[in-house]
């Protein structure tokens, strides 16, 4: 129950790339073969351990369909991590990455950790995007990269955990302002007292102080 940190994630990417499946595999260790189109957003949560510390991940799985794009944009600001997913069997989903990345960079806080995911790695025979291309894209844009399969669960844990590790390191480096919840990071109840002086990065957007 008690956690040292709480991180908020969002999962973004074109419709049908397997975002909901990735979340389901991560939280429930199940695979859903039928495409259950996500409407708006869905919430999921799981506890993980990094460096001996309990970390609670709160994950918002967004809808990939164009019509929900504006709703999705509301979730960038408060997220500490984003999983940007494409489908290795559909090149168009890879081609759209630039648009997704622009959207994410524009609306999120600058420290948000983005993990690029090439999903459906189990469908090797239908592959349209080479692994090297994903790696190159990630390198070019400063993202972490991984190929996963929500079906076989390959690399799914790793994708979520490595993102958390990256955020955790950024906290250790003092990059994140962990007292600003708008960054998508919260310190657990028992840690709050000891960790109050870290600051840096951007402040909150809302005005503070002042009175009428």
């Amino acid at each position, binding site marked *: 129950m008690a956690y040292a940190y709480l991180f908020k994630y969002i999962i973004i990417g074109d419709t049908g790339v397997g975002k909901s499946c990735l979340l389901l595999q991560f939280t429930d260790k199940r695979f859903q073969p039928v495409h259950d189109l996500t409407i708006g957003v869905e*919430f999921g949560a799981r506890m993980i351990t990094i460096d001996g510390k309990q970390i609670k991940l709160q994950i*918002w799985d967004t809808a990939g369909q164009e019509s929900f794009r504006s709703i999705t944009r509301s979730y960038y600001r408060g997220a500490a991590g984003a999983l940007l997913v494409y489908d290795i069997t559909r090149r168009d989903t890879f081609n759209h990455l630039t648009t997704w990345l622009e959207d994410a960079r524009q609306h999120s806080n600058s420290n948000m950790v983005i993990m690029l995911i090439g999903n459906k790695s189990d469908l090797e025979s239908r592959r349209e995007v080479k692994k090297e291309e994903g790696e190159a894209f990630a390198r070019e844009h400063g993202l972490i990269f991984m190929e996963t399969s929500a079906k076989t669960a390959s690399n799914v844990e790793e994708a979520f955990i490595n993102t958390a590790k990256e955020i955790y390191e950024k906290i250790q480096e003092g990059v994140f302002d962990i007292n600003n*919840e708008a960054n998508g990071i919260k310190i657990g109840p028992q840690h709050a007292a000891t960790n109050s002086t870290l600051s840096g990065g951007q402040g909150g*957007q809302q005005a503070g102080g*002042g*009175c009428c």
Partner: protein
Amino acid sequence: MGGQSAGTQPSGVETIQKLCDRVASSTLLEDRRDAVRALKSLSKKYRMEVGSQAMEHLVRILQSDRSDSEILGYALDTLYNIICNEEEEEQDDGQRRQEDDVGVQFADKFIQDQENVTLLLSLLEEFDFHVRWPGVKLLTALLKCQCAQVQGIILISPMGVSRLMDLLADSREVIRNDGLLLLQQLTKGNAAIQKIVAFENAFERLLDIITEEGTSDGGIVVEDCLLLLLNLLKNNSSNQNFFKEGSFIQRMKQWFQLGEESGGGWSAQKVTNLHLMLQLVRVMVSPVNSPGATASCQKSMFQCGLLQQLCTILMATGVPADILTETINTVSEVIRGSQVNQDYFASVNAPSNPPRPAIVVLLMSMVNERQPFVLRCAVLYCFQCFLYKNHKGQAEIVSTLLPSTIDAQSISAGQLLCGGLFSADSLSNWCASVALAHALHDNSNQKEQLLRVQLATSLGKPPISLLQQCTNILSQGSKVQTRVGLLMLLCTWISNCPIAVTHFLHNQENVPFLTAQISENLGEDERLVQGLCALLLGICIYYNDNSLENYTKEKLKQLIEKRIGKENFVEKLGFITKHELYSRAAQKPQPTFSTPEHMLFDHEFTKLVKELEGVITKAVHKSSEEEKKEEEVKKTLEQHDSIVTQYKELIREQDAQITELKEQVSALVCQKEQMDNTITQQQSQIQQHKDQYNILKLKLGKDGAVSQADVQVNGVQLEELTALRLELEELRTQHTLLQTQLTEKDTLINSLKAEAAQSAERPAPASENTELLKEVESLRVQVQSQQDEISQLQSERQELQRRTQTVSGSSSDGESAKLRELEKRLTTQTTETHRLQEELRTHSESRTQLEKELAAANSTVVILQTEKTKLQQEVGESKKEQDDLLMLLADQDQKILFLKQKLKDLGEPIEDEDDLDARDQSDEEDDDEEEEDDE
């Protein structure tokens, strides 16, 4: 106010027009500002005029005068005034509606251009109080008028919702509080917005505000927070999940820690706040939520102590009735279907003296006419939730009625229920009937147990069964509510329980009563009772095991056909579901009735009706032949079922086996890894051993002392080793034999020597020497054969070594167990080999020794032989001498005999020497014997 019509004040219209012109055309900011301020002051009185003439101008001000917060504030206020519908003022309904229409009309006009809303949103980022506050109010007013449309616009404007969430962080309370009202409107009925608001940490913020404001003792701000929370959570499973995962349930607990002497008493605000808090708890565990979600919330509510806290309120004194009622409803849903929570609830005691179970205390209220109706309904709900999917609880309740367990000392649940069943109050009758029915749902065991319950009636009369008493009251024609309650109880009781059906039918009066009820043409009020009677009769057919001859399925059906008519029966049966209150009760488990008279249907019972209506209709329509066919089909189905069950069982078993095997496999994989390691280790060890052997072999080859084969025994098979050992053993015994023979020879030689020494006078037998020679010869042969054997052994060992090498070569993929054994054997063999080598060396040494000795012995023999020949010659010579002497002696004897004869002839007496000699000898022998005896 508001009474004037536009026509009576023409000057107003003109003034407004003038002001609008000024706003539009004046280049001076101050001038514009004054004009807008003037419009604002007129906007309440001339709402219609200002709205219709000034709106465009005001919007333009908002766009172009961004730098002047004062003019922005006036413009926003004016817009607010024309759009907002004042609520506080007392107006008659017609007037009110008209005003509302005005507001909606202007709101429509404003939002026609979506940009206006976006503009307003951007103005809300202005920190200046004069802008932000009226901006918040205006947006709230717009949402109130055109909720869905404004929501839609905000949702698609970038960060629209998120920015509005920032209002909760505003340090100016007025803005924060009005922000709460805005968010309430914003989140109404829009799940997408609700989720974004929750994502923006609304739960955390709102719970913090509630705590800061003093929880239930806080003012209207707490109420507003709670209302917003309700908006966010109601019917939004994603947000409920987030709320639960965020550990916010734990934070709800403190809301219900009411100090004993809660200082402020129970203010209206506190009652409202608590009411909302309880509702929030219920939202999380509502029976309409997914069972999994509700179950996990129920679990954490118990774990964090929230349930316990609620039960404390339940048993506290001085709690206002409506809070108590809502607390009971809340506890009901927190325990519903959750065994752990139900068990806890059963253990709660009221702090009375002596302590009574909370269940008993609550039931006392349920069957008490003086208690408020809603409270009694809540208790019934609580009791139902306690028994829902709780076989243990059902058994406990029924057991308080059974003869063996009745405790005369204290009031029990069973007693209260019986009291309720047969009291004069129809509401109590109904509640007790339904409550008791809930102790029987899906529990055939308790249905049978309840048949045992006997009631003492008036003095001197025999006790009567509970079942009988129920039917008796039914036939006495009491209130509809009472009869409906009892019929629902009976239907629940005997359905799916053939024994109970038999008991019911056994009473001769029951079937005639039912048929009479159903067939009569009764009024509107009685229709429901008729329907229920038809259902009860139908159950008697459907769950009939034909054990009563008079009331078999067939006979009952014939009875229906004769007395009622099939069609009529089915129509009457249909009265139940056609009742106006039926569908309402079917919707949700909680019994809620607008008036006590409407208390007729129970939720669980509607499920039973749904289940039975169809099958009973079919059963009644079916001919006996069809029935038989059906019976057969049923049987085959049952067979199929049993086959399926068997297969399922098989699958389950196999599943278990698979799991077991999987475990074994993983254990074996683990072992294999370990073994692979050992194998590699052992292989390197073997290599080392081989190297060592090779070195040893080389050394031995140089030494040349012992055969090289001895070194190469690694990996020799056990049998071969045993054989080898046996051979060695043989060799050894041969050696010993040889040695003993040698010793014998030695002694022989010695004795020969001694004899030789003596044989100067006495001859020694020559045969012994030849024997000795023979033996020496055989010894040589033996030594030769031993050498042969040794060389054979050498070649054997070489062969073995070769084999060993092939064995060790192929062992890399062999199991490590074998390898380990081999390794062990190898070490023993190595030591054994060493030992054998050592032995062999000592043996060969002793052999050389023996050979030396033999050689020595042989030379001794040669010397002895020459000595012997010499001695033989001497013996021959002495023999000759002896012969000569013997001849001489014989001559002399002749001469003596001749002389003796001559003497005899001459008559001279002669003594016989021989006789004398003989006598002396025998004397000596006698002496010897005596001496021996003495010893």
